[in-house]
């Protein structure tokens, strides 16, 4: 197991290095002179040059990359070009907010979609299966801001049961915060539900058709026990792997949902940084997102290997 995880970790580090190069390269594409953008059209060329030198953007590209990445690794994310303050305090607040939103979405998403998939598989070919499969398929296709608008109209404005705003008043308790995050999380959940439910359904059907399940049933084991001990244990493994790959979409969805609900999260940060050409903020937040995503994938790998005896015992064999 340790070897499996080490290999995954090494791959994650390589991917991260590649991502950092890609992010840096794309940020270099941002048009315009950095100093000119910061100081505006009326500044003298001399002061623009001075600022460019101060920021270090007049150095060759590879030197800039090397200094950015070595600072990043040491935890120094530089200072925002737009706000002229350190990037990390701003970024960490947004990241924390986004993680709260993602956590609520995740807690809604995983049980709901697994339950949906398993129910669909157990009632294969019947009405419940058709409804769950078609609903999942349709919800996955609808852009998150569209489903969010419908949710706002229904729960926020027509029924008036949930707040339309995502940001709880300052000092609000845990439950109030969750209540404010319910609508945006539901919108994120709707987009991802179909895919995970489909995987859970496919996995469950495969396990139901397997010989060991038939053996268990013929042995006279109670249906409930067969499903719990034989079917679910095998069917949920691939689902866990799929959930990890969906985290990227979850984070991407945050950008849109945070804008719609005007929520101060990392998606909103990236959006404003891109619009204001604040490229130190942009590079760092994108790289932070990549780290979060790869870390989540790694956690899923650990979970997967802990749950899967074939990997858990691979070393002993």
């Amino acid at each position, binding site marked *: 197991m340790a070897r499996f995880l080490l290999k995954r970790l090494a791959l994650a580090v390589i991917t991260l290095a590649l991502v950092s190069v890609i992010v840096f390269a794309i940020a270099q*594409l941002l048009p315009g002179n950095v100093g000119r953008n910061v100081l505006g059209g009326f500044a003298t060329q001399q002061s623009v040059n001075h600022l460019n030198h101060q920021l270090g953007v007049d150095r060759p590209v590879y030197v800039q990359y090397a200094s950015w990445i070595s600072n990043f690794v040491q935890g120094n994310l530089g200072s925002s070009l737009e706000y002229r303050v350190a990037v990390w305090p701003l970024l960490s607040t947004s990241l924390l907010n986004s993680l709260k939103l993602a956590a609520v979405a995740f807690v809604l998403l995983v049980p709901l979609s697994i339950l949906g998939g398993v129910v669909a598989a157990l009632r294969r070919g019947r009405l419940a299966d058709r409804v769950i499969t078609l609903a999942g*398929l349709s919800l996955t296709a609808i852009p998150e801001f569209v489903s969010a608008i419908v949710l706002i109209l229904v729960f926020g*404005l027509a029924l008036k049961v949930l707040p339309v705003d995502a940001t709880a008043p300052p000092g609000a308790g845990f439950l109030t915060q969750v209540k404010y995050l319910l609508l945006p999380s539901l919108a994120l959940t709707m987009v991802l539900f179909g895919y995970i439910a489909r995987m859970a359904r496919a996995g469950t059907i495969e396990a139901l058709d397997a010989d060991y399940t038939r053996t268990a049933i013929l042995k006279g084991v109670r249906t409930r026990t067969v499903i719990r001990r034989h079917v679910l244990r095998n069917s949920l493994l691939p689902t866990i792997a799929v959930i990890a790959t969906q985290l*990227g979409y979850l984070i991407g969805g945050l950008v849109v949902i945070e804008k719609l609900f005007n929520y101060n999260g990392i998606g909103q940060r990236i959006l404003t940084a*891109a619009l204001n050409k604040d490229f130190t903020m942009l590079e760092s937040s994108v790289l932070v997102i*990549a780290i979060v995503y790869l870390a989540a994938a790694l956690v899923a790998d650990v979970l997967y290997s802990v749950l899967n005896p074939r990997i858990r015992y691979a070393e002993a064999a």
Partner: protein
Amino acid sequence: MSSIAVELVPAPATVARRETLRALLRSKTFLVGALVVCWWVFCAIFGATIAPRDPLAQSANVLAVPSVHHLFGTDQLGRDVFSRVLAGARSILTIAPAATALAIAAGTAVGLLTGYRRGAVDDIVSRLIEAMLSLPLVVVAIVVAVALGHSTLTLMVIVGVLFTPLIARTVRAAVLAERELDYVAAAQLRGEHAPYIMFAEILPNVMGPIIVEATVRVGYAIFAIAGLTFLGFGVQEPSPDWALQISDNYSLLAAGSYWWTVLFPALAIASLVVAINLVADGISQVLER
């Protein structure tokens, strides 16, 4: 006599195609999806003509409640929402298929090349694809859109390029299975050139997955383009584009209940993408039987 008999027996490929079509027409979900897609395609072509009012004309009658005069009400500039929903089909139904076509062309080429050649090119390209896919698509699109400026053409190219690795991955997997088959070895022994084998021999045999991928991708392209437009990086004013209508009017929701300005374009997007997904689902079920 014999010549007539020959004509009566169609080529096997024609029979297969006819059977596929018949199976598709039996699928209810496919039919419903196809019907809705056809309606929006009709609107994309004639929507501005059949609209009761000019979708761009402003009036003093702002934020009017839906009524006989304005079926879907008016927006904050007094424009008729019903006419705008009809005319709004055009932008998304032009950009999304164009972006998909671009991605399919590029992705098929890359997939054929990496799948057929294998080796170092395959390793390097696959690693790059993995790295690209580990960033959320929206995030990459935003950064590139800011860098290149926003026009309809750049939007199309961005989505097309970002979808290329996804399609390349699917095509590559199909090619990997195909290249081991005898007909490829036979073509190699005949001394055919690699481009001929890739495009004339293997490509026709991997068309199934490519067609399925294309229909699914059109749906995702609409998803991505609508999202980018909502964020302000896509279709620009004064287009009656659906996502743009939502982006223009959603801030009114908190102030009061001007639900009609966003609900109808939202339903339009939702019905289009759901219909495309139903079509894609129908096609994949028939082709992957």
